[in-house]
Structures are given as C-alpha cells and as structure tokens.
C-alpha cells in the first residue's frame, strides 16, 4: 500500500497529466452523443456536489439548499446573456460572486444555528430563490423560463454539441479541484476542518468560527453559482422547476453516497448517481426508491460515504484502532 503511495508521490505530476489526457479523450472515444451528454452531466454534478461537500463535508454544517445557489448562477447567465449579450466567460465569475453574496446572506442567520435548524433555513432559502425565479417574470421569464440561451464561444468550436461543451465542464471541474485543494491545505481549510471536528476547541484556539463558517458558505455557494452559469447554456432552456429541492436532494444524495470530506467523494457520488439515473430510467419514478434505499444503507454502513473521510467525525465518531502507525500521509484532505 505504502509502495503504491510512494510511486504515486514520485510521479504525481505525470499521473495527473495522464489522467487529464484520458479525460480529454473521453468525448472522442464514447460512441454515441448521448453518452457524451452523460459524461457532461457527471462532470457538472461532480463540481456541484463538490461545492456542497465544501459546506457539508469540510465545515460540518448541513446545507440542503445548494439548488438555490445553483439557480442563481443559471439565471444570472440566462438573463444577462439573452438580454444584454454579455459573454459567458465574463458571466462565469460574476455568477459565482453573486451566488457567494447570497450565500453570505443565508449564512447570517445560520451562524447561531446548528444541525437540523440550519438545514431548515437553507432549505427555505433555496425554495425562496426558486419561487422568486418563478414569479419575477420580467427578469426570469416566470413560468415560461428563458429560452435560447446563447452557447459560449470556445476557440470557434461548436459548443452546442456536447462533445465540445464537455471541455467547459472539464475546465471548471479541474480548476475547482485545483483551487479547493490549495484552500484546504491552508490556514483557512484547517479552520473549516477544526470547526467540523470540535467547534469549542476551535474557538479556544482563536479561530473566529462565525467568520470561517460564513466564508465556507460563500466559497461553496460561489462554485455552485459557477456551475449553474455553465449549466444554463448547456440545457439551452431553464425554468424554475429545474431548481426545486429535488435537485438539492439529488446533489446531497451524491455526497452522501460518494463520500463527504474528501475531494474524490463527490466525483464518485456524481458518477454513481448519474449512471444509475440513466440506467434505471425504465423504472421511472420507482428509481427514487432505489436511491432512498441506497442512502439509508450508506448512512447505516458507512456514514462517511464510499470514498469519504474515514478519519473524521463524519465516520460516526468512532476511532478505529487498527493501525497505530498509520497516518503517514498526514494531509488534511484525508486522502
């Protein structure tokens, strides 16, 4: 095991380059356009679930309202690009900032709340955003939604084909992972994890928990906004029902199944849930029952998820004393 790790560390850069090359080749290898669409969905949801994982998995708060931040990003792109023709690439960071601002507002009342109460507030915020989208007709198109959202330009490629749109999602996912890994290995990331593990101890060491919880919400919301911005042109048409709490729970299911508190967890979760959704389509709404069973089983057997941080409070608060000397990797990301 340690040898594999050693090898990995030695050729880390090479491994990443190979992996990236492989990911770049995916849309050309897959035989059907519809499969490429699935690949796009996987990448998109991986980043969206990743953004939720920042909040739920790293600082241990329970946000159920990720769909709201996602909606803000999507509507920012849809409204501003159709009305004023602003470029996708300009709107991408702007959508993120707007979502982060809303994230900040949502975080204000939640700083004094914990657990289930916090979840309710975030759930409510997400619903409020959806209802605003449904009723604010001049901006969001109301129940009609917004049609014909312009495709982003990308070196003159036909981005209306999933084959090329795939690269936009890939770039966002890679940038997200790169930036987030750096944040997590810093003073900021350590503070988030400290809050998750023991808030009183974090306070007694001078970590201003309110500030870091707020920052955590904003960071998570920022990336949800960015993904939302990329989502709008991909589907070309958005309306409020796409951002219902179902979407929020869908993303939550991904991180519960895939694993919280690691960077790889949401990717695993997104892959599993997206593939299940597609392969179980013939079951129609019965497939939600399968999700439910899967989530309950996960919570029971492995609360931190398939690839979750087993060395954390998320794993059910139990310490396994199997290997005393283990832990040589020492990173805060827990693998």
């Amino acid at each position, binding site marked *: 095991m340690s040898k594999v790790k050693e090898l990995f560390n030695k050729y880390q850069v090479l491994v990443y380059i190979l992996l990236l090359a492989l990911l770049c080749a995916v849309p050309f290898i897959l035989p059907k356009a519809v499969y490429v669409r699935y690949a796009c969905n996987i990448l998109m949801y991986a980043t969206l679930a990743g953004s939720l994982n920042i909040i739920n998995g790293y600082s241990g708060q329970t946000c159920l309202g990720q769909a709201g931040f996602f909606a803000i990003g999507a509507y920012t792109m849809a409204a501003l690009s159709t009305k004023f023709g602003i470029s996708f690439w300009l709107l991408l960071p702007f959508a993120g900032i707007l979502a982060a601002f809303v994230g900040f507002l949502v975080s204000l009342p939640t700083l004094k709340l914990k657990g289930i109460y916090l979840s309710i507030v975030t759930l409510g915020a997400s619903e409020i955003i959806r209802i605003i989208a449904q009723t604010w007709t001049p901006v969001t198109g109301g129940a009609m939604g917004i049609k014909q959202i312009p495709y982003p330009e990308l070196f003159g490629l036909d981005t209306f084909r999933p084959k090329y749109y795939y690269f936009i999602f890939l770039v966002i996912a890679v940038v997200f992972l790169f*930036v987030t890994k*750096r*944040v997590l*290995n*810093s*003073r*900021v*990331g*350590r*503070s988030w*994890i*400290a809050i998750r*593990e*023991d808030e*009183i*101890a*974090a*306070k*007694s*060491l*001078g*970590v*201003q*928990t309110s500030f870091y919880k707020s*920052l955590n919400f904003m*960071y998570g919301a920022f990336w949800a906004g960015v993904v939302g911005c990329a989502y709008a042109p991909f589907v070309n048409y958005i309306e409020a029902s796409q951002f219902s709490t179902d979407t929020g729970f869908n993303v939550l299911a991904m991180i519960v199944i895939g694993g919280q508190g690691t960077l790889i967890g949401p990717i695993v979760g997104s892959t599993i849930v997206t593939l299940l959704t597609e392969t179980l389509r013939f079951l129609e709404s019965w497939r939600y029952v399968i999700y439910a069973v899967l989530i309950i089983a996960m919570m029971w057997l492995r609360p931190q998820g398939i690839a979750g*941080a087993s*060395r*954390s*409070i998320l*794993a059910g608060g139990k*310490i396994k*004393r199997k290997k*005393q*000397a*283990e*832990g*040589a990797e*020492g990173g*805060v990301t827990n693998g």
Partner: protein
Amino acid sequence: MADKRKPLLEAKGICKYFGGLKAVEEVDMQIMQGEIFGIIGPNGAGKTTFFNVCTGIYPPTKGKIFFEGEDITGISPEKAAQKRIARTFQNLQLFKFMTVLDNVKIGCHIKTSSNLFDAIVHTKKYRRDEEYAIEKSLDILRSIDLYEYRDTMAGNLSYGMQRKVEIARALALDPKILLLDEPAAGMNPPETRSLMEFIKMLNKEGYTITVIEHDMKFVMNSCDRILVLNFGEKIFEGTPDEVKVNKEVQSAYFGRGLVAGEALK
C-alpha cells in the same frame, strides 16, 4: 516578592449563576506575572466554571475580569485566545481525528494571517505561514516528547498523551498565560511527574501558568500560590504551606468532624 509584580489576570467579585444554582460566588483572584497558580477544591466547587468565565466561554453574572489591566469581562473565547490566553479542557476537546501535528498547527492560527487568496495563489505570505506553522509545531512537539507521534491520529493516543497534545496545542498560541484544567487527570504517576517537570520548565521559560488539579502532590510541589474553592466560594488563598495547615481547607476536604478530632474518637 511575588506581590510586587503586576497582576496578569485579575478577577474581581466574580459570580456565575445557572438559574438558581450559584456555581461561583464572589471570587477574587490575582495571578501575577511569572507564577504558577493553583486552584483546588472538592468536586463541584466551581473550579471549572470559574475557569470558563476567565476564558470567555461563559460571561460572568457579576464581577469583572482584567487581563494586563484591561477589562476583558464577557469577551468571546476567540478574542480571549487572540489576547493569548490559552487553555486546555477538563474533558479533552482535541481534534481526535486529526494528526497530532495538525492539531498543533491549528493552534498556530492566531500567529498566522494568510487568507483565501493567499492560499489559492500560494503567495509569499502563505509559504511563510505554512513554514512557521510546521516549524513551530514540530518544535513544541519535540519539547513535549510527542515528536515521534506527530503523524498519529490524536484520538489513537493514550489518555495521558492526549492531555499532552492539548497542552502542546495551547502552547502554539505563544500564550501569555496558560490555563490548564486538570492536566494530570488520567496520567500514571511517572507521567504526572514528568508533566510536573515540564510545567516547571515552562514556568522557568517565562510562561505564567494556572492549574486546576486534584493531585495534591502535584499542586503542593509546583504551585507558588493556591486558591481554594468550596461550594463556589473562595475559602482560602495562600502558599502551599499555608494551605496545608489551614483549618477551613482541611474541613472542606475531610469534613468538620475529622478536623475537630471527633471522627477519630
């Protein structure tokens, strides 16, 4: 001699009530720069509550706390830490699932200042902070004999070791005053002895230390002055030798009957 120095942490008439329960009643305390100050008392005497009031976990019902002459009554624990009042907890508040090194690194929080931007771009400040955190943490771990356990998950260590990790973490704040809540609880005699030596050594290096402790050998051999609490009230304050012969302290610990000699008749 000791009294001529400035008081570092001062409590004046501290009261803390939980509803009708008077946990702490009118306690005065002056901790001088550079001393080891002990707080003792039977179980439930209000020692930990008093500690929590001093470090901002609870606001006092009445009374004032001064630190370096500045009124810090009712500040938050974060602010107290920023004023470099460091503490440990009676029932251990470690980050159990993090490595020992990471635990101590979080203690370096207030001594570093890099933000989100620094972390993303890896600015010079970020690198300086990370270097500082690692160097400082390893130095502390070396001095407290935990260096070889730096990559072990804190929750996997023995109880006595976990106490030491907590002290190491508090030391990372570069504290002006270190408040230890029962540091020797759960330690075996040799461990207690080495902890005592360590605390004396820290004191020689210039740290002001306050300890709550039940181990009398520990308290009597290391503290310069001792405050005795019983049922939330201060019953005595003085040097270890004075405490040993004080009648009221004896009756608080052994009962009035024993002190008066009745129980043995």
